[in-house]
């Protein structure tokens, strides 16, 4: 009973293939697989490195951007605040000026009125004095005339008296 030659391993080929395969294994391991696998690993590592660095840079950028935004926002708020305060100040200044002006003007008016009154009073006094003087002159003149005639003196006295009674 013999095995079909197809399925009976040929010792010669077995020996040759063993030697050749082991030779191939060592040659490829030393000159091909080692550098290739090393290069692949290194490249993968460098790619990963680059990616993580890019990620880091992006995060940094994001941080910077958000910081910038924050600063901008703060600046805007500050500006608004300053503007608001300025407006308030301006309003106040205007208001104060208005009030002051009013007070001043009313004071001046008051003063003017006072002056006017004083002047008026002085003028009236003066008028009264002149009227009195004039009246006395007139009265003197009239009395001189009247007292030239007895009858007329009499009539005048009675007339005066009559008037006093009527008053």
């Amino acid at each position, binding site marked *: *009973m*013999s095995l*079909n*030659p*197809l*399925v*009976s*391993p*040929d*010792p*010669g*080929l*077995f*020996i*040759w*293939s*063993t030697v*050749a*395969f082991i*030779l*191939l*294994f060592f*040659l*490829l*391991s030393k*000159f*091909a*697989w*080692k*550098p*290739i*696998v090393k*290069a*692949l690993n*290194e*490249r993968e590592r*460098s790619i990963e490195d680059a990616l993580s660095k890019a990620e880091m840079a992006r995060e940094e950028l994001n941080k910077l951007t958000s910081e910038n935004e924050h600063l901008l926002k703060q600046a805007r708020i500050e500006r608004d605040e300053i503007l608001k305060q300025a407006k308030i100040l301006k309003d106040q200044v205007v208001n104060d000026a208005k009030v002051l002006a009013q007070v001043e003007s009313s004071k001046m008016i008051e003063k003017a009125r006072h002056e006017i009154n004083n002047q008026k009073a002085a003028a009236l006094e003066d008028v009264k004095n002149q009227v009195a003087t004039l009246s006395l002159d007139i009265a003197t003149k009239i009395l001189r005339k009247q007292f030239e005639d007895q009858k007329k003196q009499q009539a005048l006295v009675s007339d005066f008296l009559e008037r006093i009674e009527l008053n």
Partner: protein
Amino acid sequence: MDLSHIFNSKKVLVTFFYAVFIFISFAKAHPSGAHNSEVDQTETLTSGEEEDITKVILHHISDAHDWHFWGHGEHKVGLPLPVILWTKKGLVTFLSNKYDNDKKGQTVFEEKGQQLVNFHDKYYYPSPEKNAEGNYVTLDENHIPTNAKPLDISFTKNVASMFISITILLIIFISIARSYKRREGKAPKGLQSLLEPVILFIRDDIAKPQLGYRYATFMPYLLTVFFFVWINNLLGLIPFFPGGANLTGNIAVTLMLALCTFILTTINGNKNYWGHVFKPHVPWWLYPLMIPVEIIGLFTKPMALTIRLFANITAGHILILSLISLIFILKSIFVAGVAIPFVLFISLIELVVGFIQAFIFTILSALFIGMAIEEHAEHGA
């Protein structure tokens, strides 16, 4: 839903097969005598075709002492290869074309004082007397000589093909390694970018999942096995020089590869692995059954590897040769119209099979080694 188109294509395929068989039976019913002469010229088929076809196919898929290109008899063109025999009288070497006129063992020749006979391209010690057919060999019921033979360590067609493949592998991968050094850290280019995905595939989908963190140790072996098997599968599909040798379909080669995996598995096996073999997780009274089973299991793995690769590649070759042989069996050139598209179709499948078998051999090797180096063999209980 998604599978419907597959079923449809299957239906088409089945219809096609029927069509071919009907065509063939039709062709056989009306053998055309006009083509006989052509057929006779192209192949050495004269009578009893089926028997001869089997021989031709077996001849094509087995090893040979010379690399036959074309022609027969006196017009034969081929590359003679050195025959190296370790005989009873020491080493005998000669070129294969020196004694290949008679391959029926009818003439005994003497080389370095050693009498030998060539029977179907194999060298035997001659029998003392001729048998009934005039051969100096004694045949058993399978027509295989029972004569003793010298240890044949010839540089055969398969060996030559293997060295061609090794040269190709060395040229390819050393040049790739050089371009990795030259273009360090840059994107791959040319051949490098063609094979880099394959190398990464072996690393990420074969080595890492099966071997875990110790994958780097076994990467060189897995890569060598994968590319060795793959390139030889592909060279085997080329019908002419420098291809045509059926190296990965030869059981000696697949046995050698499987033994390499077996040796790696055995020497790397840790306490867990051997504990699993000699102290399986079963009740003690099952040991007499389980330990032999586990020990057999150690050897069935390389056996499976051997047979799987051998059978797959050989089957592919036989299929292609059979389809071509249909032309000569039916003696009609018109059969070629059907046979050749089929050969093309099977060849394309064989291209895929060549890759898949290399992949399977590698992944199973990685799996077996992975089982041997696994740290925690937890078994539930």
